[in-house]
């Protein structure tokens, strides 16, 4: 990263006269100080939420933990750039289970993440049913995260087809890990996104942390860059340092712009860290010496004088307080009840003689 000292238009316009903040650079790319501060806060909030849920997995307030520490930089950038809304005029998100920073960037309150970890009836994503990080939100086109690796890749071309048909610039984003690309569904996504005359705007994100649980990518994958698999299908792509928010920001911008304007797929391979190991189980193997995107970004922001140490501390403290309050709140909320077991199985149907409403047990 390097820096320039041009006053960002947005800041100047903000009337922050006198406080000329530098931009944050990476290679030739620069991001406004304002944006960086926003990203930093999101990244910290995401990290703190994840750390809180890890604690919950140990304290018994929750069980299994899996999540996104190490992917905050990239995922926050993604969340800020998607077009948030409901229906095909907006972007669809087919996420994997490490996208908490994306959801926070979209505007999810920490409370909702904590509610899921605490398995409350108020968990809006799964009503206390699913593992943490398994989001679902109709209003933001966040399709239900499934634990099943890579099946979302078969669905992405479908939403994108509707988006293309509608016109406009809606894009379908599908994210997954590096190991998961070995499933045939990854190839299906490449094929279905590039049907001649039916190419569709899918942004295929591979969060490459070089591991699938305990298996190193280099021991099972022959491709040098995962994006090379797109080549045969004419899918452009790039590899980006997902620990670098500036680089990530612009890579995502290029990718989304391509999809929005060309109405064709694009691949983005983000090199990321997996800071707390795979999950709370599976031997919790940690990889030594991984870059911590938050630490690295904070050093930069401090060096550039965009943030002072007390401000950084305040961001962390605020996040901790938010998490604390969220947990406190969540724990006051009701657990699901036995009657909830069958809820949400079926949508109402006027043409069903047995289940005009929801499922009610075996036909009787």
């Amino acid at each position: 990263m390097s820096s320039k000292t041009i006053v960002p238009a947005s800041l100047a316009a903000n009337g922050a006269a006198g406080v000329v903040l530098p931009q944050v650079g990476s290679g030739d790319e620069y991001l406004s100080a304002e944006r960086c501060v926003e990203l930093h806060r999101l990244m910290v909030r995401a990290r703190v939420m994840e750390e809180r849920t890890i604690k919950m997995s140990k304290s018994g307030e929750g069980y299994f933990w899996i999540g996104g520490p190490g992917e905050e930089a990239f995922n926050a950038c993604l969340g800020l750039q998607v077009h948030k809304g409901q229906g095909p005029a907006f972007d669809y998100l087919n996420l994997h289970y490490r996208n908490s920073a994306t959801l926070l960037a979209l505007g999810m309150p920490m409370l909702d993440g904590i509610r899921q970890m605490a398995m409350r009836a108020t968990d809006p994503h799964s009503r206390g049913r699913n593992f943490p990080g398994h989001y679902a939100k109709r209003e933001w086109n966040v399709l239900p995260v499934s634990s099943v690796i890579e099946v979302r890749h078969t669905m992405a071309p479908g939403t994108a087809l509707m988006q293309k048909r509608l016109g406009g610039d809606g894009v379908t984003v599908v994210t997954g890990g590096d190991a998961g690309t070995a499933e045939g569904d990854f190839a299906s996504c490449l094929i279905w996104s590039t049907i001649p005359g039916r190419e569709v705007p899918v942004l295929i994100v591979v969060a490459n942390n070089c591991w699938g649980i305990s298996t190193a990518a280099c021991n099972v994958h022959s491709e040098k860059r995962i994006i090379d698999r797109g080549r045969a299908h004419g899918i452009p792509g790039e590899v980006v340092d997902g620990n670098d928010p500036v680089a990530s920001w612009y890579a995502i911008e290029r990718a989304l712009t391509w999809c929005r304007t060309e109405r064709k797929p694009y691949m983005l391979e983000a090199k990321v860290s997996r800071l707390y190991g795979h999950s709370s189980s599976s031997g919790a193997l940690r990889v030594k010496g991984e870059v911590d995107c938050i630490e690295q970004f904070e050093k930069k922001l401090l060096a550039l004088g965009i943030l002072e140490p007390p401000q950084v501390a305040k961001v962390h403290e605020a996040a901790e307080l938010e998490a604390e309050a969220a947990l406190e709140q969540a724990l006051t909320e009701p657990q699901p009840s036995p009657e909830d077991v069958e809820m949400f199985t079926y949508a109402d149907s006027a043409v069903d003689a047995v289940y005009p409403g929801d499922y009610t047990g075996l036909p009787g």
Partner: protein
Amino acid sequence: MATLVQAVRMALHYGEEHLGVTDIFGEDVGPPLGGVFTATQGLKTAWNSPLDERGIIGTAMGIAYAGGRPVAEIQFCDYGFNTIDILKVAGNQRWAGAGNFDMPIVVMTPSGSGIRGSLYHSHSFESWASRLPGWKIVMPATALDAYGLMLSAIVDPNPVMVLLPKALLRVRGEEKIPGEPEDDNELKEMIDAPVGDRSNWTPRWPELKAHFIKIGEARLARAGSTATVVSYGRPLPLCVQAADQLKQELGATFDVIDLRSIFPYDWKTISASVLKTGRVLIVNEDTEVTNFGEHLLRRVIDHHFYDLLVRPRVLLGKHIPGIGLNQVYEQNSVPQFAGIKEAMKAVATEEA
């Protein structure tokens, strides 16, 4: 009268015109072929997919998520076994996602034996399908039922699988599809693509009318009092035929229940009939270990064990790795007319 496959095609057309169907797709579903069984000839939203069943189901789900109404075809149910994990997700995503998203997809696929199909055109799928919570599964045995159930499948906001009995696809119905022309040849000329070059062909659709058959409602194909037969799909007309003969031969009469919906099934109708007769035979052609018919039997035992006059029976396909092409195999693997009649006779005549 229209054949079952013509009825499906007309239902899909009705769906395109009146029920918001946006995509009818799958392998060879679009022009020029219009489906290996012609089920999708001439439909305006029909298109050919890559040869990838997993992609077909996934893409249907994506289309549905984004507000479309897709009807996806698996060319033969025999080639759907690689999609079961995705079918499961289609069935559980609403539950898992706290009701955030519905999943209004229709998957249609030919099922069952009877077309000299060897291993991979003879599978039955209903027992597998019945193990997919969140799905609704229907299997019409007549043209009109195919029409009516397909319309319901399309408007139902949940995933619905329409199993089409391979052996009955070309069988004509006994009742007209609402709007179907008087003359079968006229219908054929209107909606069946010509053999050979079809590049300039377009169908002329009759003025079809709505006819919804509710999911979960059985059809009483024959009414009687001696015994109850529950079936669906290919064996159903054989049960009907046997009932007619046994009425003549023995004076025994049967409730022949065409279940039509595998899930949810019409328990009320089954239950009432079993209560009435105390004798029940369940017939299908799926393999016999962990067969949906065994589930129905379990319900009968749960609720009517003490109402039964004689041992309740199932007549199912053999638990073997496949159905062989030489007809000796098929004849000895899945229920045929003679065996069905014999089983019906046995359940009707056993001393109580």
